[in-house]
Every structure is written in structure tokens, then in C-alpha cells.
């Protein structure tokens, strides 16, 4: 799967997108997709389309770069986030979770047996902005 290259410094939540705060449970970069690990005090960790347990269900999008145990800012589905990557130049493009932890892709055809579909939203017209709206399958392909 061709992951989209996101530059963490370019990831900016847009006006009106409510930033919430949690605690990172591992090193997380701005622009990576996360879930909250109930087995580890609800700390944020990297989501993964072929991850085990809760890991394959995206819950939020990180908007800060934080190390393990540091505060982590994130947005929930419904938010708009500037991702500023050339891969997001086409409006309306759907975005999917990758099987590489935290990463995303625009190639749903790459999903293979054992992966959980995670639709992460669509690219908004202009500005390389993701309209974040996570929809996760509860059954593996």
C-alpha cells in the first residue's frame, strides 16, 4: 500500500475544529490516525488496518507531535484538518487507513484478507484539507 506522506509540521486543524486532549501512549506525529487503548488507561496509540483488538478502529486524528506520556492534541470525526500533502490535491478523493500504524492511503484496492476497512473521510476542495469522518468495519475482509 502506498502510504500518503504527511509532513507533521504542516498538519493544522482548521477553524471551528475542536481540539481535544489526551495522553500519548507511544510516539505519535501530527497527521497520524489513532485509537484510545482502554487496556492502557485510555492512552492514544496508532491505529492500524490489520491491527489487533481496538487498534483497527480509528477514533481520532492527532494534531500535535507527542512522545509517550506527553499531552496529545487530537480532533474527532467531523473536524477539518489541513494535511497539506500533494496526494490530497484532488477534491472528493476518499482516504483510507493503512496497514502501517497511523498512516493513511487513497488506495482502497490494497485492502486484503484480514484487514479492517477504515474510511477516514474525503479531501475537501482546495487547500489539501481532509474532512475527517471515520467509518470502521467491525469485520475483517
Amino acid at each position, binding site marked *: 500500500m502506498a502510504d500518503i506522506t504527511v509532513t507533521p509540521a504542516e498538519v493544522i486543524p482548521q477553524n471551528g475544529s475542536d*481540539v481535544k486532549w489526551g495522553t500519548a501512549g507511544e510516539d505519535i506525529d501530527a497527521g497520524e490516525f489513532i485509537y484510545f487503548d482502554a487496556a492502557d488507561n485510555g492512552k492514544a496509540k496508532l491505529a492500524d488496518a490489520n491491527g489487533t483488538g481496538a487498534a483497527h478502529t480509528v477514533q481520532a486524528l492527532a494534531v500535535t507531535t507527542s*512522545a509517550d506520556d506527553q499531552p496529545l*492534541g487530537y480532533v474527532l470525526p467531523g473536524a477539518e484538518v489541513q494535511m497539506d500533502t500533494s496526494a490530497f490535491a484532488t477534491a472528493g478523493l476518499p482516504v483510507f487507513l493503512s496497514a502501517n500504524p497511523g498512516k493513511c492511503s487513497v488506495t482502497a484496492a490494497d485492502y486484503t484478507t484480514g484487514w479492517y476497512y477504515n474510511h477516514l473521510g474525503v479531501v475537501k476542495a482546495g487547500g489539501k484539507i481532509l474532512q475527517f469522518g471515520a467509518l470502521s468495519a467491525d469485520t475483517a475482509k
Partner: protein
Amino acid sequence: MAASDYSLTASEVIALSPCEIGRAGATITAGQVVVDDPSTGKLVLADANHATAAICGRVKGIAAHNASDGQPLAYVGNGGRIRIDSTTATGEQNETVYLSDTPGAMCSSDDAKMVGFSTVIGHVDTAGAILTVQIAEAAAAYGN
């Protein structure tokens, strides 16, 4: 530049008390001292001898994670505690920590780096590891 700014590892900096929230106006690394830039309302690196005097006297706290311009930033403000885990903050219990003349950096009192506005950032409350933030700013610059 003198050799004795506290040397920090960003990933080892852990907030130990609730953070305050602002927005970064520059690239900021966990453990750096931030000030409120009155011209933008964003947080930028504190600097004891910053060319803009208004920025020297508005220390808000210590960044708790990395952030880039425009991103949200959580920081430990006045009264808070933060693990800085510096190998150079070897000072003794209760050593006072000052803002350095290196943007974002801290130093101890014997470093001759306390030029411009002498701003106390806090004190080390367990040698080398944990800083209690207690900001006190000079009313006027000296030296440099």
C-alpha cells in the same frame, strides 16, 4: 554561546500537572520555554535578550510536547510541575532555574547567560529531573 544551557531530550519531558493550552507560533520542542507574542497571540520561544522587549516579559511556561506554527500546544504554566530529566540540570535540590539567552532554553544561575531580562522559571525539586514552574520576571533588562 556558553556551553551550559540545560540539555534536554524532548521525548523525556513529561508534564506532571494539568497543562494550559495555547497555539504555537513557531516550531517548539518539548521542554522549551514559551512566551505569549502579543502581536499574534501565539506562543513563541522565550529569550532573555530577545530584540522585542515586549516578548521578554511574557513567559507562560514550558512546552509539554513538540508543535509547529499553527498547531495546538500544551504547556506547564505557573505552579505546575514538569519532569525535564536533564542530564545537565545536575544542580542541587531547590536550585533556581533561569531563562537563558538561547531561545527556549533554561540555565542555572551561575552560567553568565542571564543577560537581558532575568527571568526565574522555577526551581529543581528533585535534582536533575523535576522542575516546579514559578515564573518571576525582572522589570528591566541588565547586562548585554
